[in-house]
């Protein structure tokens, strides 16, 4: 993977869910530049450019993080919390993938500022439709904050 040219970071531990999400994203021709991490700890290493991902740079964040909530080691809520708590990662669009309304309520309850939610629908057509809409919005319509903007924010807050 070229670390500078990443569209989507998919954080998903379940192999089946991962395959379905990848299939849906590729089918809608949204992106082939998807990187998958399989637990919360790896997601944090990736996004905070540390451990095996120490070579990555903060100024090249993924355009979108698709975050599952139920994850081994560090759960999705904690990942979200840490992303929100750091000015270097706060602006990365994060879409939470939930399995139920309850989970969604839980996230909004913490006011962790997820950009939107996908409730993984049982129906595959619905799932494809949702993935397409989310992908279209965050990869095509939405303009990411300028990198310099992120830097300024960083200095202002430190």
């Amino acid at each position, binding site marked *: 993977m070229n670390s500078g040219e990443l569209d989507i970071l998919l954080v998903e531990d*379940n192999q*089946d*869910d991962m395959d*379905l999400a990848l*299939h849906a994203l590729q089918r809608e021709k949204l992106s082939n530049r998807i990187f998958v991490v399989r637990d919360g700890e790896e997601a944090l290493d990736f996004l905070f450019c540390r451990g095996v991902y120490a070579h990555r740079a903060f100024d090249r964040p993924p355009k979108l993080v698709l975050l599952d909530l139920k994850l081994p080691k560090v759960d999705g809520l904690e990942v979200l919390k840490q992303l929100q708590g750091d000015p270097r990662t706060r602006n990365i669009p994060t879409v939470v993938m939930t*399995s*139920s*309304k*309850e989970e969604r309520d839980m996230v909004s309850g913490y006011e962790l500022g997820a950009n939107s939610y996908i409730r*993984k*629908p*049982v*129906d*595959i*057509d619905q*799932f494809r439709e949702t993935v397409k809409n989310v992908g279209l919005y965050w990869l095509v319509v939405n303009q990411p904050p300028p990198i310099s903007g992120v830097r300024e924010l960083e200095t202002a807050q430190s």
Partner: protein
Amino acid sequence: MTGETFVIAEHCSRFGDVGSIYWVDTTIVPIMNKEGKPRQYIAIRADITDLKLAREEVHKLNDELEHRVAQRTAQLETANKELEAFSYSVSHDLRAPLRHISGFSRMLEEELGATLGPDARHHLDRIQSGIQKMGLLVDELLNLARVGRHVLRPQPTPLNSIVAEVITMLEPDSEVRHVTWLIADLPAVECDAVLVKQVFQNLLANALKFTRPRADVVIEVSCEEEDGQPVFMVRDNGVGFSMKYAGKLFGVFQRLHRSDEFEGTGIGLVTVQRIVRKHGGRVWVNAEVDKGAAFYFTLGMEKQAESKSNEATAGGQS
């Protein structure tokens, strides 16, 4: 001349040398001399051993009973919580494999494409429709579990606006048919708006469903006061059912119609009942085969926030 009588209540005494203890109330009456000093005393002893023992037994039983009630209540609360957590996680975790079956069978269908014969395609369709049904079931079970855990937030709620919202939501289902909605003036009542909306949603969706064979559908929502308490009614002119089975209606998974006649999971009315009971109210039904069904419910909280006067009733209009 006697002085002031005094009583020594419930004290121990012994039978002579034998030493066995018994309980007495002793009343002591001093007899005074001319100077007003006690000359002698008369002690009247009443053996209250049996009374005392009986009383102790009652106390002990009461304490035991209270302890047992507290224990049972705690056990029940724990069991209830466990059950809710269980039904939630079962429903929650059931969705994942279902999603995978749906996804991969659809991928299979697409990969095989034109090579699929009509039978194979039909079987794949059956798989999909099975998945849909189970998905709905799981969602409704989750919803039921959620209602169970929901903490009641009562506030004055204008019911007409809730009913209007629900009807707008259900409109896509009723578009192709001619439905006459007869919505009376409903009071604003003290209740949990989120849950009561669910009640109307389930009852009105049922009304729409079971009137499907009718050319002219009439669905009525009204409110009448009974014993100072508003009783709400949702009535339809649909297929109804025999009151013989009315008792089954509010049980989980109970259905009175074949699922190829009317789809459903048998959870909707249980949810209604649970919500109504949470409000301290009750729900009942009156129906007849082919003549429609009327569901009645109260919301228990008698304090009415605001009672709209129904001007249409003035002047004896019918």
